């Protein structure tokens, strides 16, 4: 059930250009690079204030790490094509997250790729960034 470890830290220009998420404590995550890992979904919570995706990752040492990735709330993810049935326990996935700076096994989801190649993105025209003021101002 647990896939072989494949944790890689990838400097990803595309992902790092995604606007900062409004997740609570969003400044606690390293948004300069996405951590990419393969794992198995153990639980998918669909709701507010944010969705949570629980997944297990097997390390090179054979240990199992329990990760939690957070997304925007359900209403926003509906706009991005997600539903509460998008993920289910047992799904083998490749996860791209901005991980906690302190090494905790939590992070903000950027995208997730299912075993059949289907890609679910968590980014989009999200929270305003100071560098991108609304059109018509400044």
């Amino acid at each position, binding site marked *: 059930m647990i896939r072989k470890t494949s944790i890689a830290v990838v400097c990803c220009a595309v992902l790092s250009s995604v606007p900062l998420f*409004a*997740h609570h404590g969003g400044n606690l995550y390293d948004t300069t690079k996405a951590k990419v890992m393969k794992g198995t979904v153990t639980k998918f919570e669909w709701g*507010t204030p944010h969705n949570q995706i629980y997944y297990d990752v097997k390390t090179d040492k054979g240990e199992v790490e329990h990760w939690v990735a*957070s997304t925007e709330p359900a209403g926003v993810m*509906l706009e991005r094509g997600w539903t509460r049935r998008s993920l289910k326990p047992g799904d083998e996935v490749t996860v791209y997250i901005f991980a906690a700076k302190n090494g*905790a096994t*939590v992070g903000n989801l950027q995208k997730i790729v299912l075993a059949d190649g289907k890609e679910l993105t968590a980014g989009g*025209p999200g929270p*305003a960034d100071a560098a991108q003021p*609304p059109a018509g101002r400044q």
Partner: protein
Amino acid sequence: MRTRGLAAAAFVVSVTAAPANVYAQAADPPNPPMDVSALKNFLPIGPPSPLPVSKVPDLSGDWTFGAGGFGQSLSAADPGGRMRGKEPDIPYQPWALQYTMKQFPPTGPDAAFERTTDPNIHTCEPLGLGRIYMAPAKLRFIQTVEAVYILHEIGPTWRVAWLNAKHPDDPDPQYWGHSVGWYENGDTLVVDTIGTNDRSWLDQLGHPHTEKLHFIERFKKQDDKTIRLDMTVDDPGAYTGPWPGVRNFTKSTTGFLRFQWVCSVRDNYEHYEKVGRTATPGETSFKK
């Protein structure tokens, strides 16, 4: 100020598990140094007289955040909240600046979710004017002859902007105040609000307002899929002049209230426990 003090006291009672220094932070915010009721607003209040003649713009549909996103700050110059306290377009009074900088925002560049003083996170206080647009939730307008009803997916809550109406002379201070509305130029709905209490934040960063807040919203239909909202904060109790906020909305087809964003203290705490705590060890004001 009396109402802010009461709100702070209620907040303290509600989080009895919090450390003492967090109580002190929330219970003793700086207040405006005067009775704000005697102050005069900077801008004219209520509909112009005579009312402009305008066709009624069609605002039907569901509207979600568009270009620029939903943001952290109401400041038009700093929607991302990176210049908290130093925004070039917010003319703080000293107490309002002090109040803002003493808050622990739940989101944004200065987020301290584990210590947040946010009354919405802790006790699900209503988001209030301005801040209601900082959440990624849809809104819908119900336009009738006598009023425009603004329905918000978060809360869920709704407001009424009375058409062909004036504000009462002495409205009871309440979270959403008293709103009147009118149309302009065939493409714009103007909503003019007074009579709020002073318990809510104007945005995610803790910008305060007083009971003297006069809040103006101009919803301009730019095309069939876009509405631009220009907001003006006119509060002589907290700021030395009016200041602007901007948001854009785009039409959504995913269905209004398909997912109801009900504020739940339990959900807030659980999210923190599941995701926030491991990333933020140490002091917390959250219940265990």
